């Protein structure tokens, strides 16, 4: 049993910390968020230079074969730095392509930092259930025609290629009959409407109006996209847990600092037991969340080696649930402890809270993942499984 990160992982974390401290300060980020595009080309170049766009990609496509624990380290730092670049969306998209097996040329470009991806999975009615797909894909004339509307596609307008889930057969909520596509954002019939979220990141609605793609746009096997969809979503949820942990760490540290400096009644407010106990409870939440985010990363990495998805599903569902609860508790309490300053736009605290709240609603909220956890064989099963 070994809980240590490898030397290279720690070096990568350090490099990211230095970059955030130098080039991605809170003020620099504010400028990026307020810009027309909402992201920074310079920042993206740096992430590519640091090797991050190649990190989890296959070596055959210019990547480093990094596993989920490597990515834990990266996402934790991006969370700490409140980085708004489309890194998560791109790496999630790459996971679809990696699992799909084709599209090596796209992966080459992702690894080199030349191509950004986004994943158009959710719809108006689907809430957190990714198998609820109404978008239709019909095969015709040596290609596919898609119609439908995808909602809240993270960094959808910043991506060159969209990963889209569509239904090629079956009823709306069937697991079978889902086909995944890699669709160029400028393909005919694809319209994206860019929106800024309150956490500073971008999301788009994607309209598919008789959008046409070739047969080679299919990711994986037509009609059998669910396994890839679920596995990639779990991978994404694991990354989000790590990002949330970094954000919580930073928010917790900022709150602790505030409690030690802010004076009321002639003493630092951290001297008051009511506030101390609140901080102690936040600390317990934070450590429990850290344990679960690590467990999820380790299980995702384990699945990549042994191919068994059961432990992955259980661990990711549990982690997204527990991290989500901690994010809400730590986030809300941090704002409360900051008092009036906590509800201003001025301090980073409120921005961490907003990012944490967004993560909670992305790729399955707490209720969704608790229900998933219950649905796994290990929950209802025999005593040994408990």
């Amino acid at each position, binding site marked *: 049993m070994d809980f240590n990160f490898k030397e290279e992982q720690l070096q990568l974390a350090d490099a990211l910390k230095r970059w955030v401290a130098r080039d991605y300060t809170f003020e620099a980020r504010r400028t990026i968020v307020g810009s027309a595009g909402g992201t920074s080309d310079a920042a993206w170049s740096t992430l590519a230079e640091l090797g991050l766009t190649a990190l989890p990609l296959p070596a055959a496509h210019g990547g480093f074969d990094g596993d989920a624990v490597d990515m834990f380290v990266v996402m934790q730092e991006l969370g700490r730095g409140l980085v708004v670049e489309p890194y998560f969306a791109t790496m999630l998209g790459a996971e679809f392509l990696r699992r799909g097996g084709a599209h090596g040329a796209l992966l080459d470009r992702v690894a080199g930092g030349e191509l950004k991806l986004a994943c158009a999975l959710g719809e108006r009615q689907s809430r957190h259930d990714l198998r609820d797909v109404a978008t239709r894909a019909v095969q015709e004339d040596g290609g596919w025609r898609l119609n439908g509307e995808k909602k809240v596609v993270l960094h959808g307008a910043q991506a060159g290629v969209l990963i889209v889930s569509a239904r090629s057969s079956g009823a709306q909520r069937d697991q079978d009959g889902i086909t995944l596509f890699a669709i160029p954002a400028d393909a005919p019939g694809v319209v994206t409407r860019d929106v800024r979220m309150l956490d500073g990141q971008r999301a788009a609605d994607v309209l598919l109006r008789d959008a046409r793609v070739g047969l080679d746009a299919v990711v994986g096997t037509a009609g059998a996209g669910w396994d890839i969809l679920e596995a990639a979503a779990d991978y994404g949820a694991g990354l989000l847990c790590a990002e949330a942990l970094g954000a919580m760490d930073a928010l917790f540290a900022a709150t602790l600092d505030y409690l030690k400096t802010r004076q009321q009644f002639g003493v630092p407010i951290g001297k008051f037991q009511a506030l101390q106990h609140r901080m102690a409870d936040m600390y317990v939440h934070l450590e429990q969340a850290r344990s679960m985010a690590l467990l999820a990363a*380790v299980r995702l990495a384990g699945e990549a080696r042994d191919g068994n998805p059961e432990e992955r599903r259980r661990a990711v569902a549990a982690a997204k649930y527990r991290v989500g609860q901690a994010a809400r508790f730590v986030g809300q309490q941090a704002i409360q402890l900051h008092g009036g300053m906590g509800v201003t736009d001025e301090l980073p605290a409120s921005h961490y809270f907003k990012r944490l709240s967004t993560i909670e609603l992305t790729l399955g909220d707490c209720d969704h993942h608790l229900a998933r956890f219950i649905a796994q064989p290990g*929950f209802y099963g025999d005593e040994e499984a408990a």
Partner: protein
Amino acid sequence: MDLTYTGDDLAFRDQVRAFLEAELPADLRHKVENRLRLHKDDYVRWHRILARQGWVAPGWPREFGGPGWTPVQRHIFDEECARAGTPPVLPFGVNMVAPVIMAFGSQAQKDHYLPRILSCEDWWCQGYSEPGAGSDLASLKTTAVRDGDHYIVNGQKTWTTLAQHADMIFCLVRTDPGVRKQEGISFLLIDMHAPGVTVRPIVMLDEDHEVNEVFFDNVRVPVSNLVGQENKGWTYAKYLLGHERTGIAAVGRSKRELARLKTLARREQKDGRPLLQDPLFAAKVADLEIELMALEMTVLRVLAEAHKAPGPEASVLKVRGTEIQQRLSELMVEAAGPLALPFDPAYLEGEREHSAIDDDFAAPLLPHYFNYRKTSIYGGSNEIQRNIISQMILGL
């Protein structure tokens, strides 16, 4: 990062399993599995079986008779014992007074007491709390006044667990009333059979006799029973509290309780189907299971840093561990529903044929729930643990 057990760890686990399979007496296992009350003989018998194997004091250094296990092996051992349904080894001798004697006691004390703790020759109890000294332990009033080569001890201790069986008590006593309250305290070993010691039972809310008041009326204690230096007892007491870091989380026992809860909730019906399939109940169980998964990981993370000096992270484990234990006891009662209401001491004493109740499983659940309200109070209340976290870890 690698969270799997090594081949050696797995071989060790198999060895422990085989031992428990062969050596745990069926009647003891029956009592533990059915939550019957354990008596002195039960504890002593299991203690001595482990002692024969050399496994009764996993935390002790080899030189004093410990098995020399790694922290991970200790964790595996705890978990396997919980899984098999062994009675607990009482901590007062093995895990509390022994480390203090090892670290601060005289050679004579080590030579005399440590082997007797291993063999369960002496049953120990803990004399810390007093009626006026709970969370504010340092305000204790029991006095020890020097009289030649004896101390004369007067005062009262309370919440003394299983003192009715005890041969020895380790006590914090005031030896200098004239200094700051933490500085005039000494750590004294007192013979429970000495003249002037009186034990009075306190019956708890589950109507069980688990704790006691202990009175000292001019009890003469040889000066040779002082551990370390006079007036340095507070230091030793703090050492004792920080010593056992991860066992306090009781992950193994809680995992076993969770498995029992699920068994119960699969068996009980709601709306014509197993209770565990009821979405509301399942959500509560799942929430708890996830919390326990997280606690286990947190314990393993602390174990991985076991080479460091014992630290305040034990407080995190105490708070979460006890809250989980309490929640388990709560859901167990919910799962039994109204069947949990009848109280059946005859069942708890193993006299089942005298009981009027058919549903065996339900009889101990409500007493257990009531009894377990203690866990967030004893060993430093969870509020005190929050003080420790905020002051020692967070620096507030």
